């Protein structure tokens, strides 16, 4: 039993890792068919992962209600909402008696009605609340305490103005004729924003991308050779 718990996942990871890596260098039809088949398996596995997630969610909230832990009322709401959304999306029954369309996938169906009138406003509200928090946090915490903080503060302010139409408007109203230099804008936030995004930002992002990809390669090699075992739920 211990073999299936410890060695078997490592063997699967090793074989699949080596096969998929080698396949990349074998551009034949059979190799492509093999990849297509594995990708089909992967999509099925993703489906099971989603099922596992749903079961875990239901189990967690059911236990919270059963033991009447603090805030269990929210769990009741979660479960009720889950059941209603699932039933309206899955049950092949007619909802015309409630004034909805017969087709479950129709934009006039009960599932889409709940999605549009409950899910969309609630999620949009959660995200839009960020604007208020950011405004308050920027006012209270964004201080030029060091050179790095000052650089970040200036760059942030320039980009905030340069990325909205008021930046373009400022640039156009402050444009003056400067002889042989032609028309030049005295307050040109969009120009500075463009420079910040294309030069220092792109350079830093390129470094981050390279670092992330090298780390991904390193972690993949560690998983294939069984050095990294945290994906099995234990320490390495």
């Amino acid at each position: 039993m211990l073999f299936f718990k410890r060695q078997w996942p490592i063997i699967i990871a090793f074989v699949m890792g080596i096969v998929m890596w080698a396949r990349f260098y074998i551009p034949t039809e059979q190799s492509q068919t093999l990849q297509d088949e594995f990708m089909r398996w992967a999509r099925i596995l993703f489906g099971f992962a989603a099922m596992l997630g749903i079961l875990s969610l239901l189990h967690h909230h059911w236990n919270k209600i059963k033991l009447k832990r603090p805030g269990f009322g929210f769990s009741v709401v979660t479960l009720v909402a889950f059941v209603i959304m699932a039933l309206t999306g899955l049950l092949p029954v007619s909802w015309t008696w409630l004034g909805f369309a017969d087709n479950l996938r129709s934009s006039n169906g009960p599932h889409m009605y709940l999605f549009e009138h409950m899910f969309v406003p609630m999620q949009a509200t959660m995200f839009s609340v960020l604007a208020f928090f950011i405004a308050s946090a920027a006012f209270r915490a964004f201080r030029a305490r060091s050179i790095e903080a000052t650089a970040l503060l200036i760059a942030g302010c320039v980009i905030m103005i340069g990325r909205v139409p008021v930046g373009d408007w400022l640039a156009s109203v402050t444009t003056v004729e400067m002889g042989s230099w032609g028309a030049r804008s005295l307050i040109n936030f969009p120009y500075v924003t463009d420079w910040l995004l294309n030069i220092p930002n792109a350079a830093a992002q390129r470094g981050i991308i390279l670092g992330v990809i090298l780390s991904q390669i390193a972690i993949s090699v560690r998983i294939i050779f069984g050095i990294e075992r945290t994906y099995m739920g234990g320490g390495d």
Partner: protein
Amino acid sequence: MDFVETILNLDRRIIYTIVALLVLIPLIKPFSLPIKPTPEVIGIFREIDKLEAGDNILIAADFDPASKPELMPMLEAVLAHCFERGIKPHVLTLWPSGPGLAQQAIERQAEKYDKKSGIDYCFLGFRYGNVAVILGIVSSITDTFTTDYYGTPTRNMQIYQDVDAVRDMDYILDIAAGATVEGWVVYAAEKAGVKMGASCTAVSATAYYPLLQADQITGLSGGMKGSAEYETLLSGKYGVPKGDATKGMDAQSAVHVFIVLSIILANVCYFISLKREDEERRRA
């Protein structure tokens, strides 16, 4: 309490009220600031505009309601652009909460331009698997999405008689709230040799500049501003009415100006208070 102390100890409810007013007032009474399209957004518009009637474009609507104000107008504008030019969009999503929004956008635009599902466009819906789905449609769209969102088998659809994989597409556009752009670039656009553009939330736009500079994407639309620029280009060339992104730009401008001014004011007050503390310490 003097002005400096009042500012430094300002009640957050006052800031919230100002932000709420600055969002509401421009939405009720817009002051219509001009929107100047940037080369990044023109890069997407130009490539789609170059396509001919009957060409195919793959649109990944990888976002959820949290990013709706930023990305939904882009999806609507691109669909309007496609239908206006007779280009066939194939819309899918890798996000579980994405199909509802994509359905709204595609049905609204299809109705406006009198386009038929399975002939002029196809809404493939959602499949679990991220990169596995991308790799799947690189091999075969009809094998990966055996039915469209409405349950109609894709293999029999008129739109898929000459198209079966990403290599048959003429352009790819990922409208993304998360990190799906890299997946589409690496596993779809590069592998199938198809040009690609990216539209993303304003906060994640900075991450894609290296891809833009390396010509791995032809254009980049960041946040609501990018969507508003696309609407401006579409309105300028085809007279399509501007959408929600343009309406939201005045509110965004007002809030950004407020945040910048409040940061400057708070910092000035902070340094004055530091100076005062320093003087008091010296006096003591």
